[in-house]
């Protein structure tokens, strides 16, 4: 029953409609009782609840996304750590420059004041488990030597001068590495490796004279 007659009469405002509906209660209900349609938003509410209800549907996809996010985050983190990680040579340069500044700031520049490497070299005997190469360097008179502690072990500090400038040469046994030139806080440092030893020369001298010193020292 689709109540076509009743619907047509309604559409035309037919005065006979009431009479017709009296004879057909079904038509009366179908054409005049309220059909409640779902309020706006109910469908979305239901979908939302169903989505929560079916978490099993999501895990693989979501876990894959989560894994990707974690992977990217971890890669980014590691890359940034790698990039920001202080270059060990640079860290060492900082230590060496600090030691140089300390030696000048305090009263402890020399344990063994001597311009003679034959005096300085034996002084280290028994104080270090290695024998530092102590050299005379032309144009850079030696002032003496002292004990230092660098990179977690004892080191020899050999002190040279040029005019009123001081040059500290730090040396200790080390596996060979790459030599570097560093400038920190106006101090220049240059490192090199030779005969199983690390050497760091630090000074407030200009770079040109430092290079000259290093070249002579390494001769």
């Amino acid at each position, binding site marked *: *029953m689709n109540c076509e007659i009743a619907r047509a009469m309604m559409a035309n405002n037919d005065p006979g409609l*009431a009479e017709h*509906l*009296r004879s057909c*209660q*079904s038509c009366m209900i179908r054409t005049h009782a309220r059909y409640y349609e*779902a309020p706006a938003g109910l469908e979305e509410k*239901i979908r939302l*609840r169903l989505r929560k209800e*079916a978490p099993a549907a999501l895990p693989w996809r979501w876990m894959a996304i989560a894994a990707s996010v974690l992977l990217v985050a971890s890669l980014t983190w590691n890359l940034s750590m790698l990039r920001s990680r202080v270059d060990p040579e640079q860290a060492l340069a900082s230590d060496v420059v600090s030691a140089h500044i300390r030696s000048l700031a305090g009263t402890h520049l020399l344990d063994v004041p001597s311009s003679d490497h034959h005096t300085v070299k034996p002084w280290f005997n028994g104080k270090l488990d290695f024998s530092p190469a102590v050299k005379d360097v032309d144009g850079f008179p030696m002032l003496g030597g002292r004990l230092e502690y660098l990179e977690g072990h004892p080191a020899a500090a050999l002190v040279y001068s040029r005019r009123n400038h001081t040059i500290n040469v730090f040396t200790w046994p080390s596996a060979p590495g790459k030599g570097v030139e560093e400038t920190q806080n106006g101090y220049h440092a240059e490192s090199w490796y030779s005969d199983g030893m690390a050497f760091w020369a630090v000074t407030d001298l200009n770079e040109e004279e430092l290079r000259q010193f290093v070249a002579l020292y390494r001769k």
Partner: protein
Amino acid sequence: MDSERKQALFEQTVMPHLNAAYNLARWLTRNADDAEDLVQEAFLRAFRSFETLQGQDGRAWLLAVVRNTCFTWLKKKGERTAVEFDEQMHSGTDEAPSAEAVLLNEAALGSLQGCLEGLPLEFREVMIMRELEELSYKEISEISRVPIGTVMSRLARGRKRLQQCLEGALR
């Protein structure tokens, strides 16, 4: 059933009958807010037991869930949901609408809503399912879990009561 497929199938076979679900719940509860809550609950229940649909008509299946959800709620609320006598035994007492029935006019049509809402639940539900959802006797009998004969007698008595209510409204 694969969970994604279940959602897609549910969306296809059940979701389109949201209006029918709401209409039935609204007529059973006679309250918009309760109807909305119960429809949500019914959809959740339907989704959980979606496997039991098994090729039936999605609308009738969903309406059965809505009807059960509403009846459970109405019972909890203390509303009388059971019919205290067997209508089939008493259906003979119902008479067809009298020929002298007062002529329906616009006023009577206006009271239609109130008269339908005033019908006892067991008559209201079959009337709504039959007249507004246009379900078959068989479908109604399955949804309401009563024999087809009971559906028919409830429909007859419901119509009679509605008629009386409409006539009463005009006096």
